């Protein structure tokens, strides 16, 4: 589905846990996430910590959207 959005002319970042699948389906900007049932969270953290984690991941995604890429790229987790 990321491919159809890309094809429509909009840059798209795919946030997912199983990044090889994302590579297979043809996403160009890929940001790895935490786990399948809670990609952008972690129930073992406190609410504040979890929010900070999510914010960092989303920031990662926005950075990916702001980065020119030539081919498929996985933006590994920062920090």
């Amino acid at each position, binding site marked *: 589905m990321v491919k159809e959005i890309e094809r429509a002319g909009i840059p798209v*970042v795919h946030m997912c846990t199983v990044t090889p699948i994302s590579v297979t389906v043809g996403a160009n900007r890929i940001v790895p996430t935490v786990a399948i*049932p809670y*990609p952008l969270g972690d129930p073992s953290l406190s609410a504040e910590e979890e*929010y900070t984690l999510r914010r960092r991941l989303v920031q990662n995604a926005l950075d990916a959207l702001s980065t020119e890429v030539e081919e498929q790229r996985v933006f590994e987790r920062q920090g």
Partner: protein
Amino acid sequence: MSYRVVHYINQFFANIGGEDMAHVPPELREGAVGPGMALQQAWNGGAEIVSTIVCGDSYFAEHEREAREQILAWVKDAKPDIFIAGPAFNAGRYGYACANIALSVQDELNIPVLTGMYEENPGADMRDKILIVSTSNSAAGMRKAAPAMAALAFKLMNGEEIGPSVVEGYMPNGIRKNFFEKERGAKRAVRMLISKLNGKPFVTEFPMPSFDRVTPNPAVKDMSRATIALCTSGGIVPRDNPDRIEASSASRYGEYSIAGVDSLTKGAYETAHGGYDPVYANENPNRVLPVDVLRELEREGRIGKLYDVFYSTVGNGTSVAASRAYAEEYAKKLKDANVDGVIMTST
């Protein structure tokens, strides 16, 4: 009684002129014009070109909407048994026009269509959607192209079943059809191997599915002014799943407004996905669709705006064609809404 045909050609084949006359708007003429004569000859009275539509290539490209409306109206009036466009050979804009107008006639008027062009013509990208006869790359190929198109067109008008691409001469359109070859498979295999070993051309009988890649779009230049949209295949839906998005085979997508929503609160949103443990997503749907963070970034001016609608599907669906079709649909909506970037989350 003979079948009725409407034929579409460009300014060049109507003998109006070349590039200098490509701006001419659509014009309706009675009977066959130019290459239409060759088609008509091949039908030998079985079918007749009742009218010919002539349109400049530049006009079509620059005023596509107007040209389309006018042409569709004429075709509708003529009530033909088939609409034929071209052949366009290697003329890029002509090929584009032939393919696009043929597709419109087929989809909107439900009339069989046929066009013809060289396989590298940009219009040939639509080979999966309309029947395109493969021609040579210059108008010198008309003598071969016209009878081939005429024969296939006649079959279509007659309602006959169309054979495999290699037999009928159209470009492979992804629909596999059986037929009997003159040589058995093993002999064909040995021949193909000999060609391959000697560096001679050969044509595979089954092209491997292309690992379709889309070129990355340019990055978002100024995030602080950009509209960012959220999409997910994690099945996030409002409470009680109003559109009944199915848990496993996603046959539709959800389109939900988050105008004025600051965070996806527990109870107000949930997941319809059947492929993973839903407890965590239901407890805090932002774990799948981070509306809370994006609203904050919006307030801080890090992003221009969070788009007020999100799209949701269930990633379990393996029916690739279906998921592609609905992604195409909502991608278009996002584009029309001038969204600058999309975050797609998956579970």
